[in-house]
């Protein structure tokens, strides 16, 4: 299926290649470079390219291109999903997925790639199984290894691959048994000029950090599971149990994992936490513009809105911004044309305001479109959909674990059109 993989940095250098079948010359990447050139923006490179003898499927992650070479028919999503899994694994092992970190850990990376695919077909992609075979780097161990000549490769053979629950290691032991769940909801919304909501939906995700000994069997139930329109699960979740009882029943992987994601679609009523009053005008005469933005709370369920931030991608003609903010700071980057207003906490008594003038390039006609505002915000201890975890029970083990659930609401792709 997947023939070869090339990792390419933002300069267009190939800094790693791996072949799972016979070797394919790196000149195949030239077709990709051509397309990369044409696309201007790295995000606009078509993920699937056709060359005379091969197909190239690539993803763009962390300023790197993961380019795979395919020779025969294969579902493109299969490859894309796998490449993202590779990037996730690097992230998981090294804390980030960048060229420097991959070059520093070249051998581990190579060993990982070797285990993840066999003859181009995915073999071990579960992080728990991989970690049993190839240990992630850590400073203490590398010191010890240099002194003793020890190795990064696990001495034990990966039993996880043999089991029916490959995501969990056997023989897990903790002194403190704890299970934490973070319910994070992101609001994706488009608000138009007049302040009416064009579309709004919620993307929720439950991230778990489970450090429990043995083979715990967990059950999580919700106060109001009917809220969830559409869900997707980690493979550990027993689907039929969800279908019949709307509870999540699972034997968790060890460590961090995404338990479920859910979607509350635009057909439902979604609360919008803030409103924005804005006016952005460009004047032909005098080549200047005026900007005035005020943000106020709308539906916050009595919680404080934090980390409020407004990002505006200005038209090319805007040279500089001369503004005053009643709260927070603003920056304007003339090269990327990004205006960022970092507000912080939203005080309902004293609404933050940003106003002033924009200086424009002379002799250039006015931009036709007003730029749209992208809003970032965070509300602690609130799931804006109203979802609540009601219980978390553990079976199969005797000890009493610490349990915790945290809620947070964030703005996802929250856009205000002007």
């Amino acid at each position, binding site marked *: 299926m997947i023939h070869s993989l090339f990792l390419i940095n933002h300069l267009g250098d190939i800094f*790693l*290649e*791996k*072949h799972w079948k*016979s070797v394919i010359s790196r000149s195949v990447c030239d077709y990709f470079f051509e397309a990369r050139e044409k696309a201007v923006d790295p*995000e*606009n490179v078509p993920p699937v390219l056709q060359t005379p003898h091969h197909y190239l499927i690539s*993803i763009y*992650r962390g300023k790197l291109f993961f380019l795979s070479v395919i*020779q*025969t*028919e294969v*579902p*493109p*999503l*299969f490859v894309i*999903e796998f490449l*993202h899994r590779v990037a996730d694994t690097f992230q998981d092992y090294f804390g980030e997925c960048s060229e420097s970190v991959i070059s*520093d850990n*070249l*051998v581990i990376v*190579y*060993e990982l790639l*070797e285990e993840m695919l066999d*003859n181009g*077909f*995915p073999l071990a*992609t579960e992080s728990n199984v991989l970690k049993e075979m190839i240990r992630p780097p850590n400073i203490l161990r*590398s*010191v010890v290894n240099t002194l003793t*000549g020890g*190795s*990064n*490769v696990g001495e034990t*053979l*990966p039993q996880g*691959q*043999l089991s*029916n*629950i490959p995501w969990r290691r056997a023989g897990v032991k903790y002194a403190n048994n704890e299970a934490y769940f973070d319910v994070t909801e992101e609001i*994706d919304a488009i608000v138009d000029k007049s302040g009416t909501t*064009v579309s709004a939906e919620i*993307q929720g995700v439950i991230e778990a950090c489970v450090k429990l000994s043995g083979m715990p069997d967990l059950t999580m139930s919700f106060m109001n599971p009917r809220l969830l*329109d*559409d869900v*997707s*699960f*980690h493979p550990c979740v027993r*689907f*039929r*149990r969800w279908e019949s009882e709307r509870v999540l029943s699972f034997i968790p992987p060890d460590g961090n994992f995404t338990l479920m994601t859910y979607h509350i*679609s*635009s057909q439902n009523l979604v609360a919008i936490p803030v409103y924005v009053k804005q006016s952005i005008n460009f004047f032909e005469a005098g080549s200047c513009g005026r900007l005035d933005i005020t943000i106020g709370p709308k539906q916050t369920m009595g919680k404080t809105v934090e980390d409020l931030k407004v990002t505006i991608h200005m038209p*090319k003609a805007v040279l500089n911004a001369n503004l005053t903010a009643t709260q927070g700071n603003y920056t304007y980057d003339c090269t990327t044309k990004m205006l960022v207003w970092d507000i912080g906490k939203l005080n309902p008594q004293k609404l933050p305001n940003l106003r002033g003038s924009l200086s424009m390039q002379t002799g250039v006609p006015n931009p*036709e*479109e007003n*730029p*749209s505002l992208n809003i970032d915000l965070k509300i602690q201890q609130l799931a804006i959909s109203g979802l609540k975890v009601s219980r978390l029970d553990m079976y199969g083990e005797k000890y009493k674990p610490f349990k915790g659930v945290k809620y947070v609401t964030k703005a996802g*792709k929250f*856009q205000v059109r002007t």
Partner: protein
Amino acid sequence: SSKNIINYNFYELVILFNSANDNKIFYLIWSSHDDLKEMLDSNKDSLKLEAMKRIVAMIARGKNASDLFPAVVKNVACKNIEVKKLVYVYLVRYAEEQQDLALLSISTFQRGLKDPNQLIRASALRVLSSIRVTIIVPIMMLAIKEAASDMSPYVRKTAAHAIPKLYSLDPEQKDQLIEVIEKLLADKTTLVAGSVVMAFEEVCPERIDLIHKNYRKLCNLLIDVEEWGQVVIINMLTRYARTQFLNPNINGGSGDKTFYGSDEDEDEDEEEKEKKPYVMDPDHRLLLRNTKPLLQSRNAAVVMAVAQLYFHLAPKAEVGVIAKALVRLLRSHSEVQYVVLQNVATMSIKRRGMFEPYLKSFYIRSTDPTQIKVLKLEVLTNLANETNISTILREFQTYIKSMDKDFVAATIQAIGRCATNISEVRDTCLNGLVQLLSNRDELVVAESVVVIKKLLQMQPEKHSDIIKHMAKLTDNIQVPMARASILWLIGEYCEHVPKIAPDVLRKMAKSFTNEEDIVKLQIINLAAKLYLTNSKQTKLLTQYVLNLAKYDQNYDIRDRARFIRQLIVPTEKSGALSKYAKKLFLALKPAPVLESPFKDRDHFQLGSLSHLLNAKAGGYQELPDWPEAAPDPSVRNVEVKESVRAVGTVTHRDTGALWGPQRMEGSESCSFPRAQSSEEEERKHQRKSKPRKSESESESDEDEESESESSQSESEDSESEAEVKKKKKVQTRVNYRGRPQEEGVFLQTIAPSSTLKSYELLHRITGEGLSVEYCFSRQPFSPDANMVAVQMQFTNNASSDTKNLHIEDVKLQSGMRVKEFPEIELLPAGETATAVMGIDFCDSTQAANFQLCTHTRKFFVSIQPPVGELMRPVFLTENEFKKEQGQLMGMNEITEKLTLDVKCRNEHTIVQRVTTAANLSRVPCGSDKECRFAGRTVTSGSLVLVTVATKEEGAAQLTVNCEKMVIGTMLVKDILQALTQ
């Protein structure tokens, strides 16, 4: 390079001092890698490791390290596991280039293949099969064949992975590999399923017949297979279903209620309306039902696979479920969005109604990458209809103002398409587009012109002012396509603009030589049309243009000019055609249809690479059309009765217990004959699952009787058939009385026939015609009283005789013993023979593994006893029972409360079920609320006492006293299960 050396040393020093990260490898390429060779030859593992790390880093960076081959390959048997792994990496990379040297390593792997550890066997096979050296093909073939019948499912999985490797190395091996694939397809473990289907797809996707027998099993296993395997299996099953089932949307059968009224039903062929009502094949339903939960997978590829399966196979009314899941994927990475949107675009043409509720999810944000924007636009356009068009147009208005001009151009085209499809909004759109003609951006104007041209063609007479307006644009617009469009419009509708048209031609004649080719062609066109309608004003101009064209560099233009001159300017030589010139040029042209580029793309299997590229990719398997008449559905029937302890399912089962009821069903229900399967499955839902399967009720009575008959004839050769039959009658009566072992021949033979359950040891397909079943006859095994008698029945279904049936290579846990049956010298074709062997299981439920050999073949088989067969009945009086029970209290007593099955509330059935589950005898008892049973374990003779005390309304209490606690616990489980269902 001296600078490099300095750098290198510097880094080396840093590393030495820091020692923080041993993976920071900086290396130099010496001309001959002498230092590395030296390190590899040293005795120290740490040096070897360091050298190997540098070499692998070289490979990773694409540097050539092939000259190190001899030095590296020496270390293939190195003890250090990391060195070994890195050597493997190197070997696989360079073996193809250094074939002779690579052969040196083969023996290491061959040894590895025989290792007792399954993971080492698997890894040896993995590396061996990755070495691309043609000379070892026979070795690989042998290794794969061997591994395919390995006890460990993991090794079998590796064997499945090795198949495509060998196939690509030597396609001549296809036939032999298909045999292995066939064998592995029959495997019942989830671990193997995905890998073997992948091998099937690469080696022999056309052999759809191999799937029949495994179809139901694959459907049932699907949910437990790992994600990547799921994708491959679902795609393959989609193709399979298209060849085996009928089109569910063919004649308004079950699902077709025109639920989505707006759909164009293209797949409903009118001629094919048969009167026979459509009934969905239960197997078709099974596939749809078992894939649906996977829409909730976290893996986008799995979701997409299920979505395409539903799109291609489900009745129309059911396809809707996939929309929600696909919309969810739009939140994923932009590459995922890209692929999903392409597929949604294709789907939304055929099944518009499905995505309509999610219209807003396709709205575009200014932050989306352009390629995503364009695809969303495509979907929005496909979804537009009379009811939502006003909302969509309002959205489009916002998009037109975008800074991203490519996107604006795409929006204009989208507006054009909406206008052609929905006549109500045509004028609104046209007006909007005309306004865009005064846009500052030339690209926008050009695109608008092209689209307006197409729209005007529909109703030219109403819009002469627009044409006039556009004629003026020729002064400004430079985009060739737009200029060409305007010229064509003026020429075509010159009677609507009689004054302007000649003037435009005049201007064009002036600039002719500087125009692009498409514009030149349209100038000639315009000239010709004007000449025909208004020759007075334009005759000279036309001549001039044609003269210019005559000497043009482009031969198309020269040709066109010559042709047109002949056609329109009458000379004595000009033929009959010129009479019709006017008709030819000014014929009414049909309005263009603005079509989606995604129309009819669904003849490619959705989700495939070929669909995405809209071109057939190498190795693409066509999605076949539905058959006109359904092929025989009985080909999928599996005749296996119940292979409970089939070889190799053991590991799976042990972990399976964790899964709860729903996960167990998959691996088992597949073995039931079809008629029972659905009912059987439902029953399993209700049943509390146990790791081991209980006695099943699905066995038919006939089987059991023939079984017991043969058992009797075996043990009592002298007795005639008639006598046996008589005894059978007796036995039903005597059956549940106390049955002490030493009570003479007569009582011994009356093993309760209804309790004898036979298991499959070797299926006739795996056994190549030889099938073997066994049962625990519950007779004392005369050669050794400590052994359990296992009665085997051999049937030769093949057409040739089987000779020398015997046992070899017995593998046992320590302490266990086996007394083999005497060799059966000849088993003629079609005949059946029985034999009894004794196994001392040491009072444990460990399996006895051995090989069953014929004169030609060997089969790995295993026998695992249910705990109830590890004991034999003893006769106790009530007092003895109580006394013994008194001594087995505390730890040795296990009590469980239970609710009896509704059908099991009387004494008779309780006794029957307990004695079926375990080889015990009943102890007489004064109270009718209690049933007692006693037995001794076969090996150690430990007492096993069972009490079932019944209370009101089916409540009951089960007590087991046994000094062997493991046996006690397992027995409680089995009896509980026997009584509760």
